[in-house]
């Protein structure tokens, strides 16, 4: 059957295929925003806008219903949130600049943790693959530990380690380490067994087998692990900052937003949007690196049974 069908040329469909998820994502986002405003149009507070985003369009609309959750405090207009990014504070810094600064701080710690955790995870997996006894002891513990709400421990670790950026990085390391180890264990075993026999027939050393066979074969699985670990590191960094006295990260911005919510609801939303952008951003970064490095390979299912 396959022989009867002409093979499709790769170049044509490739761009369309890569664009589709982005288009899909954006269209859902747009629908979400439209629904947001539609809800406010139906049941929010009175719309009184002198000039919508500076375009000179004035809106004066009284919605027919009153939903409790759609007030301007609980659900600010999307453009109010957008404008908030441009609002400047006493020092002349815009909210956007403040949030980006905070995000970069959090990102830096998350990135350090991610790098450490990945190296540790990969290293441990390599060790476990070669020492079977260790593997039999450690792997069940690692699998069981996935059920532990590790993020819940984050604040403790940060406080215990005198609450500064180092503690946050340790938390991020911890959160990266587990998915990467599990993914690496799967990946280091995912080579074609006949290729291993071939290498053995050349009396290849363990190191050579590792470098030339296991590691290359493990790359798709490693990236599956990275896709999970990268956002987890970011989340861990934010949560780790929460109860600590760290001033520079996104968590502080969120807490500030919480405290001043009744005065300036849009700020909390802006901080949350920035966190969301950070999370999605690192995920997209991993996917991007993955599609470049793995451009010739088949995809591995991220959440297979």
């Amino acid at each position, binding site marked *: *059957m396959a*022989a*009867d*069908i*002409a093979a499709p*040329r790769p170049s*044509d469909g490739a761009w369309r295929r890569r664009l589709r998820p982005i288009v899909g994502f954006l269209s859902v986002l747009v629908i979400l925003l439209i629904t947001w405003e539609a809800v406010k149009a139906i049941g929010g507070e009175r719309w009184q806008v002198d000039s919508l985003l500076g375009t000179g369009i004035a809106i004066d609309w009284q919605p027919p219903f009153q939903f409790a959750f759609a007030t301007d405090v609980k659900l600010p207009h999307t453009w109010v949130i957008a404008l908030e990014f441009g609002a400047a504070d006493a020092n002349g810094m815009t909210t956007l600049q403040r949030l980006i600064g905070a995000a970069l701080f959090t990102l830096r710690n998350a990135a350090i943790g991610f790098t450490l955790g990945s190296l540790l995870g990969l290293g441990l997996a390599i060790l476990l693959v070669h020492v079977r006894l260790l593997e039999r002891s450690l792997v069940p513990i690692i699998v069981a530990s996935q059920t532990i709400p590790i993020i819940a421990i984050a604040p403790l670790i940060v406080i215990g380690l005198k609450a500064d950026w180092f503690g946050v990085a340790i938390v991020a390391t911890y959160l990266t380490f587990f998915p990467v180890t599990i993914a690496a264990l799967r990946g280091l075993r995912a080579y074609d067994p006949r290729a291993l026999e071939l290498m053995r027939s050349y009396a290849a050393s363990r190191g050579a087998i590792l470098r030339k066979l296991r590691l290359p074969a493990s790359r798709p699985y490693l990236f599956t692990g990275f896709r999970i670990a990268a956002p987890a590191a970011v989340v861990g960094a934010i949560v780790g900052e929460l109860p600590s006295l760290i001033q520079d990260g996104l968590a502080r911005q969120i807490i500030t937003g919480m405290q001043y919510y009744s005065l300036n609801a849009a700020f909390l939303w802006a901080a949350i949007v920035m966190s969301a952008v950070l999370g999605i951003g690192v995920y997209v970064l991993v996917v991007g690196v993955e599609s470049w490095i793995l451009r010739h390979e088949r995809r591995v299912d991220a959440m297979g049974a």
Partner: protein
Amino acid sequence: MGDVATRTVVEIQGVSKIFAASGQGARPVEALVGIDLSVAAGEFISLIGPSGCGKSTLLRIVGDLTAPTSGTVKVNGKPAPQARRDRDYGMVFQAPILFDWRSVQGNVELPLEINGTAKAERARRAAELLALVELSDFAHHYPWQLSGGMQQRAAIARALVLDPAILLMDEPFGALDEMTRERMNMELLKIWDRTQTTVLFVTHSIAEAVFLSTRVVVMSARPGRIAAVVDIDLPRVRTVETRETEAYFHFVTVVREALRGDEGGQQPGSTDARRVAAEGLSG
């Protein structure tokens, strides 16, 4: 041969299948061109040919899994889509495709469930077919507990459970080793003998095609068309010994030469094949 009314089960006329060009500069692929074939009730027809000759495509067109670009296919006097809706087909693929979550019996009952048959009748009919393929002892096993050959037997039982007008088989024994394959051929012939189903069988193996069939349709590639139709004039009841008879080897040679015929650029029609057969018999 003349007494029994030979009802035509499958009527293929002028069928062609052209796959559209994809990508820059690619030409459309003529998978099948101008196929004419009639299959009478109770026949065992093998389709054999090199890769790309369209034999699997033809099988799928007969089974209404894909539509021809032109031409007609009638099964039991109905157009193929109608025959499919009436559940006149039983299909067996190269992979058994049994559902992991059902027992062997559950798998065989699946078409009956789709058909809406009552529960008691389903169990009875499934048991009947499992007995036919000699898997009664494994009715409550799961597919992975069976060997490859046994799984295919279960797949055959499933294909026959609705008493189809025609059994379509796409290289069902291709994944098995030679010894198992020969054994499965015997089993299939036994089953065929008991059920008298019409069979359309795609294969790569000349030996298998000749051993099983009443007629062998030899196809050529680029474009896919029928190169020759060889009547296999062996006794209806075939045994292990049949494989060692002179007549058997003769037909294998005929088919092989028909296959080779188009490699040299010739286009042997059915007349050439019959001529070869006649020469062989007299020689």
